[in-house]
């Protein structure tokens, strides 16, 4: 496999030394696993794991004096940043004019007029271009992710790991909170559904923080475990479940839209869709019985034979927690209610599946 054209994490030598298998992901060479996806999944659900998330973009928004960054961000993001005090963050969406999702991200208010956006690796350039195009004069937008990296420490023991790896005086911010200690930023978020935090640091010191987390008991975990963990919690993956052709209402992300705001990019198209109701919805599907793991692109049917597909899976895998195949996929509105029986087709065999409430676990 040719990894030479990819970007490299500051932690790459550590991944290789720990037996990590590097794969291309969103233009980066990152470990898909170390000693096993299931063992890594188990570590995060029952103890603690650490992930390299250096591929994620870290966009700093610094407004000039007399320009209110919150007012501007409220025009380009779907959620309401005016609800944030310094040190708080929220899940939000960057929408195009048709209300399609350019990216889903977390925005943190660092100071009254300074923000940090943690964005998806595959979208960092589109995000920066889109934001720059819609920015008022003088607004400084910098992707510091090029000389910074980040790790995510996740699991029920993340709090203990934090205490043992951080100097005294450092504190873990509350859920969705941010705290800055010198050159590092700690955010109480993650992509696994477990308690935990993400730590951003300059590339040259990130390895020390990784080593401290591992020494404190966090198991190195790769992209494979991360994908299963997020899928069990029904967190959408940009590029799979979300795209510029998908709206927040179709994706079930209406909670990240501040409808009371007068105006934001994409709001006209979105409000119109809200009045009419979206024609399709992203549902959670649990496959019944012993079946091959469902995977993206697998077609969805309403009958056990014949007919045309009514939708396709956008994410899928085998849930170790449920011991069953689980998936996310789009189906026409009306077929999205929990309890609806559908079929998926893998290698010309149909397998029954049921729409279930989100999340799976």
């Amino acid at each position: 496999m040719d990894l030479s054209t990819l970007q490299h994490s500051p932690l790459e030598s550590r991944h290789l030394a720990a037996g990590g298998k590097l794969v291309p992901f969103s233009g980066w060479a990152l470990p898909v696993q170390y000693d096993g996806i299931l063992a890594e999944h188990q570590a995060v659900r029952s103890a603690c794991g650490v992930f390299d998330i250096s591929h994620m973009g870290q966009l700093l928004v610094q407004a000039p004096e007399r320009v209110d960054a919150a007012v501007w961000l409220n025009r380009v993001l779907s959620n309401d940043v005016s609800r944030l005090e310094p040190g708080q963050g929220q899940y939000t969406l960057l929408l195009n004019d048709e209300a399609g999702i350019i990216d889903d991200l977390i925005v943190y208010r660092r100071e009254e007029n300074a923000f940090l956006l943690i964005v998806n690796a595959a979208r960092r350039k589109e995000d920066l271009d889109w934001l720059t195009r819609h920015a008022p004069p003088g607004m400084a937008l910098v992707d510091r992710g090029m000389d910074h990296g980040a790790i995510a420490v996740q699991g029920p023991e993340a709090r203990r790991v934090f205490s043992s790896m951080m100097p005294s005086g450092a504190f873990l911010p509350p859920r969705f909170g941010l705290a800055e200690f010198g050159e590092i930023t700690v955010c109480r978020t993650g992509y696994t559904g477990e308690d935990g935090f993400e730590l951003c640091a300059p590339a040259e010191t990130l390895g020390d923080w990784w080593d401290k987390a591992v020494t404190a008991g966090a198991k190195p975990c790769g992209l494979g475990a991360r994908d299963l963990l997020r899928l069990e919690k029904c967190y959408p993956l940009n590029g799979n479940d979300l795209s510029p052709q998908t709206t927040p209402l179709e994706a079930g992300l209406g909670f990240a839209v501040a409808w009371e705001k007068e105006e934001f990019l994409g709001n006209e198209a979105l409000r119109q869709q809200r009045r009419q109701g979206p024609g399709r919805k992203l549902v959670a599907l649990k496959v019944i019985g012993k079946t091959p793991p469902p995977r993206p692109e697998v077609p969805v049917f309403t009958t056990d034979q014949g007919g045309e597909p009514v939708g396709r899976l956008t994410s899928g895998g085998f849930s170790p927690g449920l011991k069953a195949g689980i998936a996310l996929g789009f189906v026409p509105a009306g077929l999205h209610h929990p309890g609806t029986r559908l079929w998926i087709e893998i290698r010309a065999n149909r397998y029954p599946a049921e729409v279930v409430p989100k999340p799976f676990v």
Partner: protein
Amino acid sequence: MNVPADLKYAPSHEWARLEGEIVTVGLSDHAQAELTDVVFLELPKLGRQVTAGENVAVIESVKSASEIYAPVPGEIVEINEPLAEDPGGVNSDPYGAGWLFRIRIASGTGLDHLLTPEQYRAVIS
């Protein structure tokens, strides 16, 4: 990687053990490690006549699906039913409990066309 000296190998990573006229087939240690955790097996039907190199089974790991090829021609005479129920044996014991199926080898054929352990080591190194 473990490459037992008493087995023959296909370039597509199956191993084969000949006892009398029965060939037991499984997946090599190298292949199971590349696949990662196996969660589903689709094994051939008993009595099926297969040719060498024919796609006869599918192994699904948490990561991806992989096809398994018959290393020799003959008839499928046994499949590892307990393994289909709990496919983790492909990873934990690839040359023992992780065997996949048995073929009664067509008369006049053997394992001569398969790779020796040394040749297989060269393939995977």
